[in-house]
C-alpha cells in the first residue's frame, strides 16, 4: 500500500503564464472580427415570426432596416400601444419612408444602389394594414427587393 502513499509535500510549480497574452490576443481578434455593433436602440418590441425558408442576408452594407412593433412601455405614454414604425433611432410615419430610402440610397456606393435590400423587422402580432402601406411606400421609392425578417426554424408550429 505504501506504494501509493505520497511522500511528504510535493510543490506544484508556478503555472507558466507566458502564453497567456497569445491566447487572449487570439480571442480578442476572434471577437473583433465577428462583432457586429448594434446600430440602433430599439424603442419597440419586435419578435419576428418563424419561417423554414428564411435565407441569410448576404451583405450587411446593402441592407436597410425598417422596424415595426408596439412601443416599449416607457414610450407608450407618448406614442400609445398601436404598432409604430421605427427608422434608425426615431419613431416615424409611413410618409417618411420614401425620404429614408432616398437617404440610405445616397449613403451607398454608386455601384451597389440597385442591389439595395430593405429588411422588414416586424413583430408577428402586427396587423397587415401598416405593412401594406409600407410596401406601397417602398414601391413608390423604387426599393423593390425586400426581406421579411424571420427566424430560421426546421418546422413551423
Amino acid at each position, binding site marked *: 500500500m505504501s506504494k501509493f502513499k505520497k511522500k511528504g509535500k510535493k510543490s506544484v510549480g508556478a503555472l507558466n503564464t507566458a502564453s497567456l497574452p497569445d491566447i487572449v490576443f487570439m480571442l*480578442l481578434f476572434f471577437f473583433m472580427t465577428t462583432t457586429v455593433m448594434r446600430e440602433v436602440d430599439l424603442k419597440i418590441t419586435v419578435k419576428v415570426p418563424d419561417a423554414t425558408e428564411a435565407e*441569410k442576408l448576404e451583405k450587411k452594407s446593402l441592407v436597410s432596416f425598417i422596424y415595426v412593433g408596439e412601443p416599449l412601455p416607457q414610450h407608450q405614454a407618448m406614442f400609445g400601444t398601436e404598432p409604430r414604425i421605427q427608422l434608425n433611432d426615431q419613431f416615424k410615419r409611413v410618409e417618411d419612408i420614401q425620404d429614408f430610402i432616398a437617404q440610405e440610397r445616397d449613403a451607398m456606393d454608386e455601384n451597389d444602389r440597385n442591389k439595395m435590400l430593405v429588411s422588414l423587422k416586424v413583430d408577428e*402580432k402586427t396587423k397587415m394594414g401598416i405593412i401594406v402601406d409600407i410596401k406601397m411606400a417602398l414601391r413608390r421609392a423604387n426599393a423593390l427587393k425586400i426581406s*421579411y425578417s424571420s*427566424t430560421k426554424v426546421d418546422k413551423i408550429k
Partner: protein
Amino acid sequence: MADIAFLLLIFFLVTTTMDVDTGLMRGLPQLPDENEPEQTDEIHDRNVFVVLINKNDELLVENKPTSVFELRELAKEFIANPENESNLPEKVEKDLPFFGTTMVTKNAVISLQNDRGTSYGMYIKVQNELLAAKQELRDEISRRQFGMKYADLDEERMEAVKDYYPSVLSEAEPKEIGGRN
C-alpha cells in the same frame, strides 16, 4: 500588454451580437406606369390558385377553408399538376436546356390576398408555405435530374429548373372588409 488585451476582449465580448439576420426574400412589383395602359390579360380560371386570408387569420384556398398545414401540398399539386388534370393549370410544351421538350405549367399564377386586419405572423406563415412548396418541387426535380440539391446547382441549371416550375406569386391589393385594426 495582456491587461490591455483583456480589457479590449471584455469590451468586444459585451458588445458582440452573434445573431445572423435571416429572412424571406421577396420582390415587390414595380409601380405601374401611369402613361401606359393597364394590361388586362385574360387569365384562365384553372391557371389561378387563389389564397385568401381574412382578418381572423382564416384561410380560404380555392374557395375551400383550409389550414396552413395543408397549404403546402395543395400548392405543390397546383404548381406541378402531375396528373394533368383539367381543373389544374394547363401544360404548355417548352424547350428547356438539360430537360429537352417538357410540358410545363407556364401560365400558372398563385394569387395571394390578405385583409388589412390579417396578422403579420399568419401572412408570413402563408408566404413561407408557398415558397416552401416551390422550393420542394425544385429540389425534387433537380435531385432527379442532376443528383443534387437545387441550391447547389450552377446558374445555368438553376435557370432551367426555375423554368421547369415557372409559377409566379402575385399579391393583390388587400381588401378592407374587416375594418381597420
